[in-house]
C-alpha cells in the first residue's frame, strides 16, 4: 500500500472537475433519452454506464485525491452515476413495454378459426331425457328398478290382472316370442314397463318407491307418431295408507320440475287392468297455458289448441296385482303411473316425427348435446 498523495491538487484532475462531471452526466442522459430501441439502449449503456464509460473512469480518479477532496468528488461522481443508472432503468422499462406491446400485436390470431378436429359426440336425447325424468323421482327418494325386455307373459299380463281372454290383453298389440326352435316360450316382448312393478314388489322390501325407465315393444308400424320400439317411465309406490291424492302430488311435482312450475294437471277416469281406479293424466299445455283454446287466430302446435297434453296413465294399484306379487292388499296400498318418454321428448323439444327419434341421424342427436 502506498502512502497518501497529499501533494495532489484535485483541481488539476480534469475529469473530476464539477463542470466536466456535469457535462458527462448530461451527455449520458441525452444519449439515454435518444435511444430508440433496446439495442440502441444497450450501446448507450456500454458507452455511458459500463466500466469503461467516462463517469466510471472519472470515478477511478477519486482514489488518488487527497482525503479532504475525496468526499466532495465522490459525492459529485456518485450522484451523476446514480442519475444515469436510474435513467437507464426507466428507459429500459419504457422500451421493453413498447417492444412487448408490438410483439403482442404481431402475435394476434383469428379466434374465430374453427378447431373441430375431433368433434364431440352426443347422447341420444331419449336417453338423456329418460335420465332427467327418472332423476326427478330419484330426487324425491325413489330408486330405479329394472326388468328384462323379453318378459314372461305372466309378468307382462297375468300378474297385472290382464285376464287370459279379456279384451284388454289384445288391446296391447303384443310381439309374441318363440324359442329358437320355434317352440312356445310363454314369453313376449314386454308391452309396457309395468311388469317391473311386480318384479320390484317381489325383489324388494316394503315399502317400495321405484321408477323404471325402459324400452317397450308393440306391433305398431313406424309412422310419425308410432314406433314398434318405444320407451316408458314406470312409477310405483306401495306403502301403508297412500292414496290417489299422493299420486297426484307426485305427478304434479314431476310436471313442475320437468315443464315448469305452476302448470295444472288433470286426471281423467280411464281403465287399466292393473290399476283401479285408473286415470289418464293431462297437464296444462306449457306452451300456450290454455290460451289457444277457442282462439283460431293463435293456434297452439304443442297441444293442438286443446289446452291440455296427455302425458300418461296412472292409478291405484289394483289389489289383485298386490296379491299376485305376494303383498297383502289389506295392509298395503299403492299407486302406479306410466309416462311416455317419446311423448315427453316430443313436447319438451318440439320433435315432430317419430322417425327422427329412431333413425339415428347424427344431425338430430347432436342438436341436443348430451342433456335434454
Amino acid at each position, binding site marked *: 500500500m502506498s502512502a497518501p498523495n497529499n501533494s495532489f491538487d484535485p483541481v488539476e484532475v480534469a475529469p473530476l472537475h464539477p463542470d466536466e462531471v456535469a457535462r458527462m452526466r448530461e451527455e449520458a442522459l441525452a444519449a439515454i433519452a435518444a435511444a430508440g430501441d433496446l439495442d440502441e439502449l444497450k450501446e448507450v449503456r456500454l458507452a455511458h454506464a459500463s466500466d469503461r464509460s467516462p463517469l466510471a473512469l472519472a470515478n477511478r480518479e477519486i482514489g488518488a485525491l487527497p482525503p479532504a477532496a475525496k468526499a466532495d468528488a465522490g459525492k459529485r461522481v456518485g450522484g451523476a452515476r446514480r442519475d444515469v443508472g436510474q435513467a437507464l432503468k426507466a428507459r429500459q422499462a419504457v422500451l421493453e413495454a413498447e417492444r412487448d406491446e408490438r410483439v403482442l400485436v404481431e402475435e394476434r390470431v383469428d379466434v374465430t378459426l374453427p378447431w373441430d378436429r375431433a368433434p364431440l*359426440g352426443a347422447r341420444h336425447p331419449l336417453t338423456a331425457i329418460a335420465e332427467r325424468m327418472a332423476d326427478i323421482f330419484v330426487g324425491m327418494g325413489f330408486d330405479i328398478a329394472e326388468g328384462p325386455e323379453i*318378459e314372461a*307373459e305372466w309378468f307382462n299380463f297375468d300378474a297385472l290382472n290382464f285376464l287370459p281372454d279379456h279384451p284388454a290383453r289384445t288391446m296391447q298389440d303384443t310381439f*309374441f316370442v318363440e324359442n329358437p326352435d320355434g317352440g312356445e316360450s310363454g314369453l313376449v316382448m314386454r308391452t309396457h314397463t309395468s311388469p317391473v312393478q311386480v318384479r320390484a314388489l*317381489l325383489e324388494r322390501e316394503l315399502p317400495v318407491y321405484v321408477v323404471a325407465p325402459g324400452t317397450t315393444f308393440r306391433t305398431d308400424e313406424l309412422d310419425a307418431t308410432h314406433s*314398434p320400439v318405444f320407451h316408458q317411465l314406470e312409477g310405483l309406490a306401495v306403502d301403508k295408507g*297412500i292414496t290417489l291424492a299422493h*299420486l297426484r*302430488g307426485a305427478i304434479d311435482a314431476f310436471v313442475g320440475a320437468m315443464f315448469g312450475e305452476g302448470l295444472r294437471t*288433470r286426471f281423467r277416469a280411464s281403465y287399466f287392468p292393473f290399476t283401479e281406479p285408473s286415470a289418464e293424466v293431462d297437464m296444462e299445455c306449457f306452451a300456450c297455458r290454455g290460451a289457444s283454446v277457442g282462439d283460431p287466430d293463435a293456434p297452439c302446435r304443442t297441444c293442438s289448441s286443446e289446452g291440455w297434453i296427455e302425458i300418461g296413465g296412472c292409478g291405484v294399484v289394483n289389489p289383485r296385482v298386490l296379491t299376485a306379487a305376494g303383498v297383502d292388499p289389506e295392509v298395503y296400498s299403492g299407486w302406479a303411473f306410466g309416462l311416455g318418454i317419446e311423448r315427453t321428448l316430443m313436447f319438451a323439444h318440439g320433435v315432430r316425427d317419430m322417425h327422427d327419434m329412431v333413425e339415428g341421424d347424427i344431425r338430430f342427436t347432436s342438436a341436443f348435446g348430451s342433456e335434454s
Partner: protein
Amino acid sequence: MRVPMTWLREYVDLPSDVTARDLAARLTLAGLEVETVDELGSDITGPIVYGRILAIEELTGFKKPIRFCRVDVGAANGTGEPQEIVCGARNFSEGDLVVVCLPGAQLPGGFRIGARKTYGKTSAGMICSATELGLWEDHEGIVVLPEGFGGVGADAIGPLGLREDVLDIAVTPDRGYALSLRGVARDAAALYGADLRDPAAVDVPEPAGEGCPATVDARLCGRYVLRGVSGFDPEAPTPLWMKRRLHQSGVRPISLAVDVTNYVMLELGQPLHAWDRSTITGTLQVRAAARGEKLETLDHVKRTLDPDDIVIADDSGPVNIAGVMGGLTTEISLASTEVLVEAAHFGAMHIARTSRRHQLSSESSRRFERGVDSAVQLAAATRAVGLLAELGGASVEAAYTHVDRSAAREPIRIPADHASAVAGTDYPAGTAERWLRTMGCEVAADGDALAVVPPTWRPDLTDPNDLAEEVIRLEGYENIPSIPPVVPSGRGLTADQRLRRAVGRTLAATGYNEVLCYPFVGERDLDGLQLAADDARRVSMRLANPLSEEEPLLRTTLLPGLFKTLARNVGRGFPDVALFETGLVYRPKPGATRAPLLPVDRGPSAEELALIDAALPDQPRRVGAVLAGAVERRGWWGPGREALWADAIQAARDIARVAGVELEVAADEHAPWHPGRCAALYVRSGGERLLVGHAGELHPRTVKAFALPERTAAVEVELDLIERARGAVTAPRVSTYPVATQDVALIVGESVPVGAVSAALAQGAGELLESIRLFDVYTGEQAGPGRKSVAFTLRFRAHDRTLTAEETGAAREAAVASAVEHTGAVQRA
C-alpha cells in the same frame, strides 16, 4: 260408440243449453273418452225443401236416361212456379214427395248447388239422394218420402235431421255398458243430475205358452230369449229416422228386419240375431261346438268350429256362431215373413276366445266380450218384435221362449268411507251410497260398511276398488287433492346404473353419437356378419308375429343395427360417423322350456319364479360402437386422421377405464372382424379372466354386406361383465419426490405383441416403476429382417426418497432383462 245427441236426449233430460262439446268434456273426465264430436251437416245451408214431382219428361239421346222434372216447391223458390230440375235417378214417379235443394244451397262437404245448363236444359237445383244429404249411403236414387212427411215448400233440414252432433266415444274394455245409448245416457244423467228414461223399461207380458223349443247349456249362456213375429212384410222399408240414426251411429242400413236388430242393439247394448224361422228345423240348442263341426258364416267363409266355440244349432247342425256371427243358410232374406229374434247372454270369455280364434270381430262380439246386461234380453227381444210389428206390419207372437240360468250376484262389502280412503279426500257421508245407487247398485248400509249389489249391466264392478272408482269419477277426478307423497329416503342409483350413464357420457365426449336401434334382425344380417353355421350368435329368440318377415329374430349382438345406422348416415352425406348404442341382447338358454302361467291369487314361490327365470333368455347389457371416415378432420391445422382398428380398441379401453377396470387386449380371430385386425378384450374378476368382447377393423365381407365405408371399425363389449370386474379402488399414494425417466429401445421379433413386451418390462422394473409408455415402433433396415424396434419411456419414482442413478439404472436393467427373458428382446445399442 257413436252417439247422436238427439237420440241421447230422448233418454236423458239434459239442460237445453248443454252442447255436444260440453257433454263430451264431462263424459271424457268421467271415463267415457269422447275422441271427436262430429258436427254432421254443420256446413249445410238452405234452401232445402220438400217438393212434389209434377211432371217428368224423359230426355233421350244421351248415354244414360235422363229426366227433366217440373217440381212444385211452393213459394220456396220465390216465384211459386214449378222448379225445373234435371235428374239422373229413375226411382220416382209423378206425384212423389221428394227433397229439393234449390240454387244457393250447400250440401254436406261444401257442395254448392246452383242453376246450370246440362243435357240441353237449365237445371235449377237438385232432387237429392240420401247420400247427397248425408243421411246414409245408398245407390237407390233419390229419397222418396212417404206421403204426409212434410208440406211442399217447407224447410226439410230440420225435420230430416240433416244436422246432428255425434259423440264418438272410445269405450274402454271395462265399460261395456257404454256401448249403448242406454249406458251413455245413464252416465250423462248422473253427471248432470238429470232424469233418465230407461229404454229397457219395456212392459213384457208373461209368455202365452211355449215359444220356439230351445235347450240351453247354462255354463255357456245365462239367459236365452226367443221371440217371433209372423206376417212380416219383407218389403216394408226402414223408416228414414231409423236409417239415419243407424248411419250416424256407424251402422249400415240393410233391411227392416236387420235394421231393427241393430237399432235395438245400439239402444240397449244387447246384440240380437234375427232368423228366417222357416229355415230353422226342430229344437234350437245352445251348446258347445262339436270338434270338426263346420259352418259357413254370413261373410261367406266356411269355418271349422272349436269345442270352445258356442254354437246355436238346430236339428240340422250349427246355424250360428253364438254372439259372433250368423250362419248363411238361415240368414234373413227379402222373402222372410216369419222372423225369430234371439236375445241371449253368452259367456264373455267364450265369445272373446271365439272372436280371436276365428279372427271375427263384430258389433255383437265386441259387446259380448266386454259384458252385456245379463237381464235385458227379454226387454230387448220384446222391443225388437214390437218394432217389427209396428214398422213391418207383423203380429207379435204372445208365446215366447225365456230360459233363465242366471245366478244372483253376491254383494260386495266395502267400508262406507272406502272411496274416501282410496282418493285421499273426505267425501261427505252418504256420497258413496248416493252415487252407487245412481249407477243402479242396490246398496244396504251395515254399520260402517256398505253391502253393494251392482246392477246387471255392470259386470265390471266386482271389487271394492271398482266401486270406489265409480264414486270418485262421479265426484270428479279433478277434485282429487294434490298431496306430495312422503317418500322414505332412497339409495340413489346403483353402481351399474351409474356406470351405464358414465360410459354413455364418455363415449359421447370422445366423439360417438348414441343411437337406439330396433332389436329386430334377420338371417341376412347374421350372414352379413360372416357368422359360422355353429356360431352361438345364430341361436336367437324369434318373434311369432314379426312386423317384417325379413327380420323375425331378436338380436344376439348390437352390431347389425349399428352398421345399418352408420350406412344410413353415410348415405345422407355424413361420411365421418362414430356411433354407439347401449342395450340388451337376447341369448336363449339352451333347452329352455315354456314359461309357466303362475297363479295370481297368491304370490309366486321361489321355485315358480325359478321356472320363469329358466325360460327367459339371458339379456346382458352391451355397449357397441362403430366408426368410419375421419375421426380427426383435416382443416387449416393440417391433415385429418382416418378411423382405424385402434380407435375401436381404444373405445373399449375407455369404457373399462370409466369403470376403473384394466382391459387386457389380445389378438383374436372373431367374426365380423378382420382376422388380422381383431382384438379379444378381457377383464379380470376374482382371478378369472373374462372375455368381455371384441374390437378392431371389420372383415371386408362384412363391410360389403352392410354397404359400409372401407376400413370401418367396431367394438362390442358386455357391460355386465365389466361391471362384475369392478372392485373398490384404493387411493394411490402420491409421491412428491422427483421422477427419474429412462428410455428403453428393444429389438423384438415382428410377431411379438407390444403388449407382451410392455408387460415384461413392467414386471421386471418392479415397484419403483411409476408408468411405462410406448413412444415408437419401427420396422425397417435398422431393425433387421423380421424384427421391429420398440421404444418405451419408463418413469421411476419412490415414495420415500429421491432415487439414485444407481437405483434407477438397476431397475431399468431388471426391466430389460425381463423383456429379454420373456420376449426374446435384444437391447438396441
